[in-house]
C-alpha cells in the first residue's frame, strides 16, 4: 500500500475542494483521474503529491521549466538530488558526456533531439510539455504523478508520451482529460464530480459511454 486516504477533506487554504475522499493506492496501480475541468482532479493529485513527494516523479500541468536553461539541463534537473552538488555545477557550465548520453535516448524518443541544447523558453507549449515528461522519465523511480501530461501535444505524440511513462514507471497516476486515452492506458479509473469521488473501478470492460455521466450536468441524482 502506497497511500490510504480515509474520508478526508482536501483543498487549499480557502477551504476544501473535495469532501469525504477515500482512496487507496497500491504499488503497480495505473490510475487515470477523470472528470470535468474544475471537478477537483488537480486538487486530488496535489494531495497525493504532498504525501508521496519523496518517491514520486512529477509532471505538473505547468512543467515549471527554467526558460533560459537548455532542454538538456531542464531534463537533467530530474536527477539533481542523485548527484553531488559540485558535479551538478560542473554539468551546468560544462555538459558532461555521460549525462548527454543518458538523456539523448529520451529526447530522441519524444522527438526533441534537435532541441536538446536550445533554451527551453524558446520552445512551443507542446515541446515544453514533452521536456517536462523527459525530466520525469530521467528522474526515474517507480511512481509518476502527472497532471494532464498530454494536454498540449497531438494524438500521435500523446501515445508516445504515455507509452514511455507506462514503460518507465511501475505505478502511474495521471489526471486525464481524454477519456479514450484514459481507458486505453489505465487499469483503474477514478472519476470525480461535484467535489467528490463518484467512481473508482477497474477499467476493464468499461467504455467511453460509461464515463459520460461525469461530464453531464443533469442526471446524477443529486439535483
Amino acid at each position, binding site marked *: 500500500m502506497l497511500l490510504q486516504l480515509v474520508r478526508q477533506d482536501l483543498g487549499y487554504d480557502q477551504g476544501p475542494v473535495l469532501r469525504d475522499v477515500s482512496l487507496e493506492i497500491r504499488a503497480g496501480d495505473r490510475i487515470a483521474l477523470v472528470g470535468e475541468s474544475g471537478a477537483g482532479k488537480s486538487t486530488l493529485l496535489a494531495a497525493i503529491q504532498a504525501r508521496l513527494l519523496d518517491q*514520486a516523479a512529477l509532471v505538473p500541468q505547468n512543467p*515549471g521549466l527554467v526558460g533560459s536553461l537548455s532542454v538538456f539541463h531542464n531534463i537533467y534537473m530530474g536527477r539533481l538530488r542523485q548527484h553531488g552538488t559540485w558535479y*551538478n555545477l560542473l554539468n551546468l557550465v560544462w555538459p558532461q558526456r555521460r549525462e548527454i548520453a543518458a538523456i539523448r535516448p529520451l529526447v530522441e524518443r519524444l522527438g526533441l*533531439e*534537435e532541441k*536538446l541544447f536550445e533554451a527551453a523558453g524558446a520552445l512551443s507549449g507542446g515541446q515544453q510539455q514533452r521536456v517536462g515528461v523527459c525530466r520525469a522519465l530521467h528522474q526515474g523511480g517507480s511512481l509518476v504523478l502527472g497532471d494532464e501530461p498530454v494536454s498540449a501535444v497531438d494524438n500521435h505524440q500523446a501515445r508516445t508520451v504515455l507509452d514511455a511513462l507506462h514503460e518507465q514507471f511501475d505505478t502511474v497516476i495521471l489526471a486525464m482529460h481524454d477519456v479514450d486515452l484514459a481507458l486505453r492506458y489505465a487499469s483503474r479509473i477514478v472519476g470525480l464530480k461535484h467535489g467528490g469521488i463518484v467512481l473508482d473501478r477497474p477499467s476493464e470492460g468499461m467504455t467511453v459511454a460509461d464515463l459520460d455521466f461525469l461530464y453531464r450536468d443533469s442526471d446524477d441524482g443529486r439535483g
Partner: protein
Amino acid sequence: MTGGVETIPGARPRYSPSVRVSFVFVVIAVACLFPADLSVTTLDPWSEIRRMLLGVLTPDFFAVEAIGTAILQTIAFALLGVALAAVTGFVLAQFFHLRAVRAACAVVRAIHELFWALIFLQVLGLSPLTGVLAIAIPYAGICAKVYAETLEEAPAAALNVLPAGVSTVSSFFYVRLPDAWVHIKNYTFYRFECGLRSSAVLGFVGLPTLGYYLETAFGEGNYSEAAALLIIFYVLIATLRFWMRPKLLGIYLLAAPFLLEGASDIRFDNIRRFLTEDIVPAPLRGADLLDVQTWVALQDWLQMLLTDQALPGIVATVVLTQIALVATAFLALAFFPLISMQFFGRFGRTIGHVFLVVARSTPEFILVYVFLQLWGPSMLPAIVALALHNGAIIGHLLGRYSDEIRLRPDSAAGLNRYAFEIVPRLYGQFLAFLFYRWEIIMRETAILGVLGIATLGFYIDSAIADIRLDRVMLLIVVTALLNLAIDALSRGIRARLRLSTRVESCQG
C-alpha cells in the same frame, strides 16, 4: 563528420549569448587586473581596522553640535537641489522630443555632482548656490529623461478616444499626467534619497554637509564621532518615508533656504572672469588669433593634455571600472540569496536586509574614503567599495525578484536550487541591472580621483589645485564623453541581448 547531428544547431552544447557576453566581461576584468595597482600601502591596516570597529561599537552621539549641523545642512542642500531638479526636469520633459534637449540632458547627466561642485566652486565660491546647483543640474537631466519616458507611456487608447480638437494642454492634464503622476512622485521621492547621498558627499569638497564633518572626524582619528554621523545618516534614510510627507514638503522647502550655510558674496566679477578668461585654453588667452603660432601652441597644448593626462586618466578609469563591474556582479549574485525567501527564513533575511541597507545607503564615495584610510591609495579600496555598494543595490533588487518565482513542489534546495532554478531565471534581469550600473560605476570611478586614485578625477583635481581651469574644463569634457560612450555601448549590448530597457530604481 557525416552524422546529421553535427549540422543541427540545437543538438550540440553551446552557451547562450548572455553567458558569452558575461564571459567576455570576466576575461576583460581579469586582463585589467595586470595593469591595476592593488597594493596595500598602509603599514598596519589591522590596527586601524580595530580602531575603526571600536569606533563603530562606541558611537559618540554627544558631538551634538557637529552632528546636528551636518544632518540639517545635508537635508537642506538635497531638498533644494532635488526640488529645483524636479521642476526643471518636468519642464524639460515636455521638450524631450527635441534632439538638442535630449543631448543636453545626456551631457549634464554624464558629469558627476562633485565635478559640477568643483566647477561652481571656482565661480561662486563656497556659496550655498554651489551645492544646490551641483545637485540640481545633473539631477535635472536624469529627471527629464525619466519623466519623459513615463509620460510617453500614457495609454494610447485613452488618447485616441479624445474628441478631435482637444488642446495639447488639456490632453496633457487629463490623459497623460494622471497616470504618470504616481510614477513621477515615486521617482522623485527616490531621487531625493539619492540627493541625500550626493549632498553628503559634497562635504568632501568643502560644503558644510555630512562629508565635511566625516572627513574632519576621520582626519582626527575620531572614529566614534564618524560612526555616530554615519549611523544617524542610515536612520535618516531608513525613516525617510515617515518624515518626508507631501504635506510637510512646503514647510521644508520654505525653511531650507534659511538653513543653508556658506559664504554669500557671489561676485559677478568672478563669473565674468571664469567665462571669459579662466576656461579659455591658455595658448588662446590674449593671443593674436590670426597668428599661426597661436594655433600651433594650441595644438601642442591639446596634445600635451590628451597624451599626458587624459589618456592615462581614461586608461585608469576604464581599468578600475571594468574590475569593479565584474566584482559587483559576483557580489550581487552572492548577496541576493541573503534576503530571498527561496533560501532563508525570516531571521536570516532580517540580518541580510540590515547588511544590504547599510552597504547601499552609504554613498560609494564615503565607502571608498573609509577603505582608503585602511589600505592606502591604490585601486583596491575603490574596487572593494564600489563592488560592495553596487553589489548591495543589485542584490537587493534581485532578492525581491527571486521572491516572485514559483517553484515546482519537488524542486531542489540549497546550492542546486540557486544554480539551476533561481540564477538562470534571474540572469537576464541581473545583466540588465548590471549594464545600467555600468555607466554609474564609471561616473563614480572618475570622481574617485579626487581621493588620490589616478583616474580622470585625479588629473582634474590636480589642475584645480594649480588653478588651471582651462585644463579642468577639457578633462571634464573628456570624462563626459567617456561616460556617453559607455552609456551607448551598454544600450547596444542590452538591445542585442534583448534585456529590458527600463530599470528605474537602478538608475543613477
